[in-house]
């Protein structure tokens, strides 16, 4: 059975529980002073990689978490180290905006450099909802892809993944190498233990630039404007006609 060299790609986004506000220039979401956290689907990817390491044990040769972003993204890398990922690497792009194609190219270069044979990514990021990086990466590598995974298992040299689809679940399998993107019900990410968080604060991080990987960033899209969605009207659920009449009376509609 081949050894597993797992690569997890993660993204730092606005904390998904916060309500995003559009900046005055209407060019994007206002992130000034807002809490940034790991994209929830990426967190699930990190958790899955750690679980694979815990269950497959000796078969896992290496786990590496990588992110492309500003230096502040170090935080999500250190959190992942605290939870149990062995190595972490930051691809420093400063404040440049990254499109999914660039990220896919950076990840491809990383896969080749690190000789990874299993890539786990979140299915999409909660800021752009693009849902493209995983697919693009798999196509560029020529690898099979399992998107929106809700269960990951191993059978010999094959990886067996269940995906939730409309109308049920689909189970696919293929030999490695492969790209898996995570869906919500794959797992519940653990809390990082404090003692390990403290240790991870001092851990060494790999630091690269896009040029180091031979992938200069070229953006091909231009955001014209960002606007609030039209607000939905609130609906009130009622159980029966009596309650309906009562509610109408309370709303002074009758």
């Amino acid at each position, binding site marked *: 059975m081949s050894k597993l060299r797992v690569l997890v790609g993660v993204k730092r986004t606005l*904390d*998904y*529980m*916060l309500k*995003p506000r559009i900046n005055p220039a209407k060019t994007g979401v206002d992130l000034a*002073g807002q*809490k940034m*956290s*790991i994209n*929830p689907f990426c*967190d699930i990817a990190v958790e899955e990689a750690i679980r694979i390491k815990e269950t497959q044990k000796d078969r896992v040769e290496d786990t590496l978490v990588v992110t492309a972003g500003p230096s502040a993204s170090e935080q999500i890398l250190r*959190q992942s180290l605290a939870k149990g990922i062995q190595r972490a690497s930051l691809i420093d792009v400063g404040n440049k905006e990254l499109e999914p194609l660039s990220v896919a190219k950076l990840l491809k270069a990383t896969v080749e450099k690190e000789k990874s044979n299993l890539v786990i990514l979140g299915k*999409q990021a*909660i*800021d752009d*909802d693009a849902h493209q990086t995983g697919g693009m990466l798999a196509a560029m590598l020529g690898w099979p892809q399992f998107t929106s995974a809700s269960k990951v298992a191993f059978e010999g040299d094959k990886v067996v993944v269940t995906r939730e689809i409309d109308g049920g679940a689909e189970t696919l399998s293929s030999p490695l190498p492969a790209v898996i993107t995570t869906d*919500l*019900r794959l797992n*519940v990410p653990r*809390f*990082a*233990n*404090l*003692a390990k*968080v*403290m240790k991870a*604060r001092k851990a060494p991080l790999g630091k690269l630039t896009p040029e180091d990987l031979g992938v200069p960033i070229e953006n091909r899209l231009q955001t014209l404007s960002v606007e609030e*969605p039209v607000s939905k009207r609130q609906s009130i659920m009622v159980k029966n006609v009596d309650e309906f009449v009562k509610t109408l*009376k*309370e709303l*002074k509609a009758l």
Partner: protein
Amino acid sequence: MLFLRKEVFTQVGRFAAVNANASTKFCSLRFAHKPSFTADSYPSLQRDSRYATLNQADVDFLKSILKTEGGSIVNGLDQSTDPSDLDAFNTDWTHKYRGKTEVAIKPKTTQQVSQILKYCNSRKLAVVPQGGNTGLVGGSIPVFDEIVLNLGLMNKIHSFDELSGVLSLDAGVILENADSFLAEKDHMFPLDLGAKGSCQVGGCAATAAGGLRLLRYGSLRGTILGIEAVLPDGTILDNMVTLRKDNTGLDLKQLFIGSEGYLGIITRLTVICPRRPRSTNVAFFGVSSYENVLKAFSESKAYLTEILSAFELMDNTSQRLVDAHSSTQRPLEDEHPFYVLLETQGSNKEHDEQKLNALIEHLIEDEVITDGVIAQDESQLRVLWERREGITECLAKAGSGVYKYDVSLPLKVLYDLVNDTKQRLTDLKLLGESSDHPVIDVVGFGHMGDGNLHLNIAVRKYDKRVEKALQPWVFEWVASHRGSISAEHGLGLLKKPYIGYSKSPEMISLMKILKNVFDPNGIMLPYKYV
């Protein structure tokens, strides 16, 4: 982005939903099984014959009061009314008490409240004021046929001054709604508690609720700047100041705050609200002993000073209940005798994180705490709070009843009460695994930062033997340490007989004199409080 939020909400957001609507959600589960009438469970309580009995003419008059401005009335005297319409008004949240009111009235204006009370006073009809009905001492529901005056329709927020932070609002505004309103304006309500999705600010004021962050934001006795109240004779007292300082005469509003409706009904309030913090951090510790919990508290104050916003204690029994009766994620793998939830709130993320990290390093290196986690994002933060706030609901699910004691004690002896209670119930053979034993378990948790312990005894069913074992024994224990037999829940019906354990006869006597001044006919909140 919107689609995703809805999807994720179904898994993680339900914690927020449970948190917000704990009371209302749980109430609907409860009504499948109605408790016995209070009058039957406590035969020593007799309906006071000085009160008139409601008749159709009374109901007609009350209806006429609501005619112009609106409002609603549930008329139990009318044969076509489904009697179960009055269940919600008659039954308390702890599912222990049930009254027999025939009428529940929901006015919309202070004028209507005034007219209602004036009429009831002239007819000598007893009245019980009611807000969100989330009280834990049976104070907000009738004992017999007292008319329920529910403030739920008086729910407008009147004004907010962003410069001073003063909010002016009706008593019937739901706490969570007030806070959501303030969130939009970068402020927050200076009170937060588990029932926030259902409780009303008027009820919070009438019970002087403490909540989760009294440690940091203070008591309602300080943050309420003014009130509007209606006296039993219908007089409207307007003390709706929006001023931070007003030393002109006796501060009468303080009589109403914490009065539970004994002297009159609070209809409006002004509250001074702090800025909403930009940065909140929550840590959850596993601690090996109560002595270490005390040490952690002391060190937290030293390292965090002004950013410490909550320090909550939970014992292992409470966390086992949360595991058994909820699906809230366990933050720590191993079990520990005690757990602490610590929260910081401030305006600067980096500053707060630095202080918190320094504290944590110190607590770990000096082995004050055994283990711990820190929330990495908002959703983990809510999970940690749910481990604390979900205890109450899980206790209720454990059996079919809970005896609750909310006491203030000197910090050094706080947890001794839990140990002693467990010992006592075990010695009396009331606590055990089998169905022969009425008591399932004894749990201790609470606002340690305020010296406030919630001692809870989960039972398979309410049993007089358990009640006899606990009362007055718990109160005697508390009194022997000069503690308070009701730190924040109030007296209501449950603790009326025990006020003597925390207040002197002279003080009680003066309270009764004041009651006669405000309410000579004694129509407000009979059978309860003092």
